[in-house]
């Protein structure tokens, strides 16, 4: 799963530590999500979406966008 967390954070001049505090997670977790090493749970993704005022799919998206339409993973 890819995400735009780093870009969205940079646009707002937030540090990883500030974002981590706002989402109630560790800075390590924010870094791991931004670098694609860790996929967040749905509740955490919803919290991030609420914080940025966006829909989840505007932040997180499948690496293979055709997989949903075709049903093939």
């Amino acid at each position, binding site marked *: 799963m890819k995400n735009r967390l780093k870009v969205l954070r940079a646009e707002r001049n937030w540090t990883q530590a500030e974002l981590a*505090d*706002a989402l*109630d*997670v*560790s800075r*390590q977790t924010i*870094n791991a999500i931004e670098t694609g090493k*860790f996929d*967040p749970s749905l509740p955490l993704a919803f919290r991030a979406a609420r*914080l940025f005022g966006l829909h989840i799919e505007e932040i997180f998206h499948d690496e293979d966008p055709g997989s949903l339409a075709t049903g093939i993973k």
Partner: protein
Amino acid sequence: MNQLKTSENGYRSRICTNTRRLAGWNGAWLAATVLMKFGPKSLWNQSSVFTLLAVGLDVAVGAGMILATKKYVMELDELQQKVYLNALGTTAGVAVVAGVPYSVMDLYHVIPFHAEISHLLLLMGLTFIVSFLYGTWRYR
């Protein structure tokens, strides 16, 4: 720049508090275990009553330590829970895989000393530390 709202009792301060609490319980359990192990010979001349009291204290403090550990893990965030549980799984696996052959080697006198439970605890502790550090490094 948009200002972020962060709570006073944020994740970091909560984890620091829980870590200190867990360290306190671990220290208390260690002290109770030392008392239980060495008290009978050194302090109360092997009196069964005092030994039973020391065992009861050790079990009670151990139960508190288990609950503190559970609270600590439940309050970790999802990535840190994953790292912790991976380390715990590796530790349990190593304990079983290494513990049984070690016991068999003692049984058939392949090793020139007794297989003590403390050896297994030491192995488990080291395995957990290495696994936890590896997990932390992997997601750094």
